[in-house]
């Protein structure tokens, strides 16, 4: 009887040990599953929220949510397509070390293991349908800026004007010098003609109109006038050169000014972006904080659940070990 009892006790103890062992394995699987679910949920909760900033003048800044990034297995290992999330192999990809425990990763992949896991007690906070398990990693967010039509017109005008000014500044000044000189000559020519006529009349009255001299060519007065007019023309030529160069510099400066003005709408929009981004950042920070709180709370429940399961397994193990040790007359603790 004693033997039977011992056998029976040994058998019960072994069964309890096996159950405890099995329960311990299930506890791990459940912990992993719940952790993954919690991570996915928190990832979703912490995901970027698109927003748009619109300035009073109509310019808009748009920050769109990143597209989900598919996770696939390529010939060279897993990759995450940072651009399209198509999961195609090849191209510029970020590869995961192929020596990594692929089984573990396979088992950890939600698409393959979630269904197999014992999800009899799923986490209640997971929103139904809000989580796409294929979105393992977020794609880069897209930011867009758009000016209002008026600003865009202004920008285009300014940019076109800047181009014209720079183009004019890059042109040779000879033609402009000539043009300015001709205009200056056109202004001074009537006066010079008047002076010439006055001199002609004066010389005629003095009977000196037909004078030719070796010293002066004509009459000294004619030479003086010719010299003065030549000097005036030379001065006008010099002034025309200086004016053309000044205009060239002015064109370049205007080009600079136009170019700078062309970016004013964008700059003003960027300026307006700062407070918008601050507000969005604050909202994101609050979101992340809530997500953290949620994670901590969920993790504490999960810890308690795992601790309970672990205690149950330990209890069953201790009972099974006692029964088995009693049947065998040994203390398993000494062995283990």
């Amino acid at each position, binding site marked *: 009887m004693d033997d039977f009892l011992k056998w029976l006790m040994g058998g019960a103890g072994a069964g309890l040990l096996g159950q405890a062992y099995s329960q311990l394995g299930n506890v791990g699987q459940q912990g992993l599953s719940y952790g993954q679910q919690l991570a996915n949920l928190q990832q979703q909760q912490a995901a970027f929220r698109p927003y748009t900033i619109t300035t009073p003048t109509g310019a808009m800044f748009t920050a769109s949510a990143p597209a989900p990034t598919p996770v696939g297995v390529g010939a060279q290992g897993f990759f995450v397509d940072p651009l399209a999330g198509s999961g195609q192999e090849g191209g510029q990809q970020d590869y995961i070390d192929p020596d990594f425990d692929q089984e573990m990763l396979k088992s950890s992949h939600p698409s393959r293991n979630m269904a197999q896991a014992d999800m009899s007690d799923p986490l209640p906070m997971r929103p139904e349908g809000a989580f796409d398990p294929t979105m393992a990693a977020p794609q880069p967010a897209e930011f867009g800026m758009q000016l209002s039509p008026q600003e865009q017109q202004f920008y285009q005008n300014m940019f076109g004007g800047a181009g014209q000014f720079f183009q004019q500044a890059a042109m040779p000044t000879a033609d402009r010098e000539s043009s300015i000189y001709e205009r200056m000559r056109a202004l001074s020519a009537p006066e010079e003609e008047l002076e010439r006529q006055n001199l002609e009349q004066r010389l005629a009255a003095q*009977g000196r*109109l037909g004078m030719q001299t*070796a010293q002066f060519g004509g009459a000294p007065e004619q030479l003086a006038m010719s010299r003065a007019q030549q000097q005036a023309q030379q001065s006008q030529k010099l002034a025309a050169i200086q004016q053309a160069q000044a205009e060239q510099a002015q064109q370049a400066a205007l080009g600079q000014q136009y170019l700078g003005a062309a970016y004013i709408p964008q700059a003003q929009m960027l300026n307006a972006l700062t407070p918008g981004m601050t507000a969005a950042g604050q909202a994101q920070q609050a979101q992340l904080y809530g997500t953290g709180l949620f994670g901590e709370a969920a993790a504490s429940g999960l810890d308690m659940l795992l601790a309970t399961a672990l205690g149950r397994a330990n209890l069953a193990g201790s009972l099974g070990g006692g029964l088995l040790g009693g049947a065998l007359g040994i203390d398993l603790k000494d062995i283990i």
Partner: protein
Amino acid sequence: MAQQLRNINLVAPAFKGINTEDSPIAQDPSFAEVADNAVIDKRGRIAARKGYSVSTTDKTALGSGSIRAIEEFKEAGANKIFSVGNNKVFSGVTTLVDETPAGYTINNDNWKIVSFNDNLYFFQDSQEPLVYSNAFEVVTVDSTTGFVVDETITGGTSSATATIKSVHSSTELYIEQTRDGTFTASETLTGGTSSTTATFSSISTGSVLKMSDVTGATTDVANIPKGNEVIGAYGRLWTADTSTNTSTVYWSDLLIGQNWTGGTSGSINISKVWPDGYDEIVALAAHNGFLIIFGKHSIVVYQGAEAPATNLMLADTVAGVGCVDRDTVQHTGTDVIFLSNTGLRSFSRTIQEKSMPISTLSKTITKDIISLTQNESSFFRSVFSPEENFYLLTFVGQQTTYCFDVRGTLEDGSFRVTRWPGSSYTAYDRAEDGTLYIGNSDGICQYTGYSDNSVKYRFKYYSPSLTFGDPTRLKLVKKIKPTLVGSNNASAFIYFGYDFETTYRATEFSIGNQTPAYFDVNEFGANSSPLSEFTGGELTTQKNLNATGNGATVVVGLETDINGFALSLQEINVQALLGKTV
């Protein structure tokens, strides 16, 4: 009862010269209707002019031509007479030495010669001007063949050098004060370029060169104005009236008469200044600080000619009066006399007002002088002689000379004028010593003596028509009493006519003789007594000649041949009876 004779005393007849303009009846008896070969002498009487004496003894170079211009080259102690004629340039008076530059062809003898700054300049239309200077030396060698212009000749013995300006003849080389050293007789001269050699013979100073050959000259002959008129004034030569331009006056560089393109030379075209719109320059004159430009029928006066390039300025214009010919312009010191189409005129000199009133000097013969001017087909010549106090104007083609006495003017401003008909003078020049040179076909003559190279000439005087104060009554001339001074042994004729007839009645008489007595010379030959006697100074002849006929007006004339002695007409008394009224 016998009627008293009415006397007209013609004291110093023709004292006012010829007057053919006023009515003969109303004329002052002091005028003359005719005063040929006469001048107004120092006492204000009408007198016979002087004749000319030919000084030239060798006129071979002149040939059959006439002297057309005479000019004295004036340089201290080296004055020299130059003349032109027969398309040549001559120097000398007794012998006309051909000074024409070698290789220079003269086509006309209408030269105007001016002395300026130790040079003598010859200008005429279409000819490169010529220049004479004592500085232009002539080297005589045995042969000039082979020498070239502008090469240096060097004396083999003396080592003296000179630059050839032109090869004048087969034995003469012109150098222009380029000589460095003195050539020695019979040494060999070697040309630096041609290597030609010649034996030096002698060197003489002074020669005539083409203007372009002169140092400092405008080298391009085309740029040298070839004016027909030239004057030296205000430190420059002034020329005008070229064959292609008759409206431009050219002036040379200061004191360099051969430089027309450099320095302070220049020109002025006055085609737009003529007061009549168009004219042609005929003559130039410098007077009273002005440059006077004579056109044919207008005059333009410029001031500031001292610095023409800067100060030359129109001062005045005269329309309607011009100058007939450049050779009629003469300076008298106070006036510039010139012949216009309407007679002899002058610009007077006024220093204070700086104006130049123009006056007419030939009002008493206006029609005559206009006629002569219009009919003159040859050329004009004139001269002013302060020693003789006259201005001579010769119409060469008509062989008529008017003599204007410049000592004073009549009430109307005219000069007293007499006429020298038959005068064949073709050139004049008054030399620095007062000698009046006359050029003609005989060569160069001097205005001296009382015969035309030993040929007598006729002195004529005719009074205007005399009315004895009553032109309505007949005059019966009874006596004519001339008083003559001088003219030994001459036969004189008193003419008288009536009522404007041109046929006269004549009375001949002889002028007395006066043999001059000389100291220590017997009057009647050797050993005669007395040895000599004093002469009475001027021979005075008074005659009392009977006259016949009658008329309302009376003309009295006197003619005599002048042949070696001076003659003055002191007075003529005409005594007549007054008859009935006609």
